[in-house]
């Protein structure tokens, strides 16, 4: 655990082209912004607003040894392990989702020590990104103390508060090399509007040295300027914009589509008996064989997509 020096952190930021410029590119081009061994933060949470298309592109590009962090990790974590893209995931909770039980793939990889699941509390993950976003080396907090989670958390320290004498926990800043975040809409410059739950994405964008946005649709800068209060991630943090409809499938994107439940069931089935072979078969069929993202969606199926969309848009019924 090393905290980057403050001046290094600033100089990386200042070396970026932070001008108001068109950053639109393809998934494949955006994947080239991620180098083997990079630390990678993933936006969204569990099965929500997961930047699945970008993860799909990183797996197809054969990236190796990314140190991945996310608030809560679901099926995408299994696939990052099984593809070899990551052997180290930092998060607070890791499984497909409560209704599907404990992830068999996560278990197979971590119990055999082929991969590492580094556990921090949810608030610790949030404050680690926040410290990174604030440009300070740590944040103080009041949980994790006394627990086994603290014993195993590399880099966490306790201190006696200089004002009150209380015991506080200090969690180290996370400044990921790259953050990948999926949003409902943004302009070509990367001004992003996020509907619904923002999870840890705003801090994550501020903390990262590079941000790749995938978006359901690209809107005009004029539309952004009509409601600047709705801009949750500013263009100056963003390095790439990729337009990917259904870019979180089979996870959900707030207000547009809910999780693709039948496909999530299929995934759980495929990985339940023989997690290793099942994950490889899933990767082959849905990650390596498809010609492009549209082909991936076709393989998931039109009926599933329409059902997820019908349920998703229902959030505005009340």
């Amino acid at each position, binding site marked *: 655990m090393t905290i980057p020096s403050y001046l290094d952190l600033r100089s990386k930021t200042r070396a970026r082209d932070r001008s108001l410029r068109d950053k639109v590119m393809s998934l494949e081009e955006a994947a080239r912004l991620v180098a083997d061994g990079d630390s990678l933060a993933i936006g969204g949470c569990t099965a929500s607003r997961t930047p699945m298309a970008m993860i799909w592109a990183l797996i197809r590009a054969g990236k190796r040894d990314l140190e991945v962090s996310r608030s809560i990790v679901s099926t995408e974590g299994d696939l990052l392990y099984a593809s070899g893209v990551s052997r180290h995931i930092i998060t607070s909770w890791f499984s497909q989702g409560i209704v599907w039980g404990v992830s068999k793939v996560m278990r197979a990889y971590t119990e055999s020590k082929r991969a590492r699941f580094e556990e921090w509390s949810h*608030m610790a993950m949030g404050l680690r990104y926040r410290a990174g976003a604030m440009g300070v080396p740590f944040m103080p907090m009041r949980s*994790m103390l*006394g627990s086994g989670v603290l014993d195993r958390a590399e880099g966490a320290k306790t201190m006696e508060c200089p004002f009150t004498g209380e015991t506080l926990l200090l969690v180290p800043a996370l400044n990921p090399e790259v953050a990948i975040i999926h949003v409902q809409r943004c302009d070509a410059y990367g001004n992003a509007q996020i509907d619904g739950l923002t*999870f840890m994405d705003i801090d994550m964008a501020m903390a990262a040295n590079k941000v790749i946005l995938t978006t359901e649709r690209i809107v005009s800068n004029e539309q952004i300027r009509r409601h600047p209060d709705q801009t949750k991630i500013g263009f100056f943090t963003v390095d790439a914009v990729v337009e990917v409809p259904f870019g979180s499938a089979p996870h959900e994107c707030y207000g547009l589509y809910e999780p693709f439940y039948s496909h999530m069931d299929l995934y759980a089935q495929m990985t339940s008996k023989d997690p290793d072979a099942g994950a490889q078969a899933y990767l082959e069929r849905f990650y390596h064989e498809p010609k492009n993202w549209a082909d991936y969606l076709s393989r998931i199926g039109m009926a599933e997509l329409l059902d997820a969309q019908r349920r998703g848009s229902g959030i505005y019924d009340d």
Partner: protein
Amino acid sequence: MTTERARVSLSVAPAYTGSELLAVMSARLLKEGQTVFAGVGIPLLAAILAQKTHAPGLTILFEGGVIGPFVEAGKLPPSTNEQRCSRRANMLVSITEVLLLLQRGYVDVGFMGGAQIDRFGNLNSSFIGDAENPKIRLPGTGGGNDIASLADMIVAMKHEKRRFVEKVDFITSPGFLDGGDTRTRAGLPAGGMFRVVTDLGILGFDAESRAMTVVALHPGVSAPDIRANTGFDLPVPDDVPVTQAPTMDELAILRELDPEQLYTA
């Protein structure tokens, strides 16, 4: 909530599952006007049941960043992070902000499920066996550690000997640690275990030793029953009260909420 055992056994008791019993018994512990930080599953069901019965003004918080939602019957969320959690909420915030409400002291009750618990109320959801070489790697804390560190806790879980152990394999979410004042001395001066609701009874913690004790037994459950299903010495007071069985009304609400028995099978 307490009745004579003899009377209960004579009344016509509706049939219910163990999970339904957990949801009803924990819902009754929630009070009108409280702010409850709830996990999905039984805690969510119990919180909604309380909203629909005696606590219409109960405010639910979800760790996904949701303040005060009313979740729709038949559309239970698969986790605390999907759009279904946010229905008719007063406010949506980031995960970090909603967790900081715990730290700031805005939450009356933390409410979650448990996989393994010990006599001092410490919870394990990380490792079965040794953490370095686990038999099973479990999903981990999520917000569990933060909630248990910073709020008064209700835990709902199945009562089995392998789940109620002398010492948990790993402390994911702190209870009273080693008992006495060890929790406070570790830097956790606030919150702590309040009640553990199981399918056999309701458990509390001694004010001094902080060890688990029986507060009430469910209808048809004897002191030897609950002790036989607990992996440590669990004191049962002689005059321990018996809870009132779930009513038809409570069960009807639960079944409307979870028609596919996602969480109540």
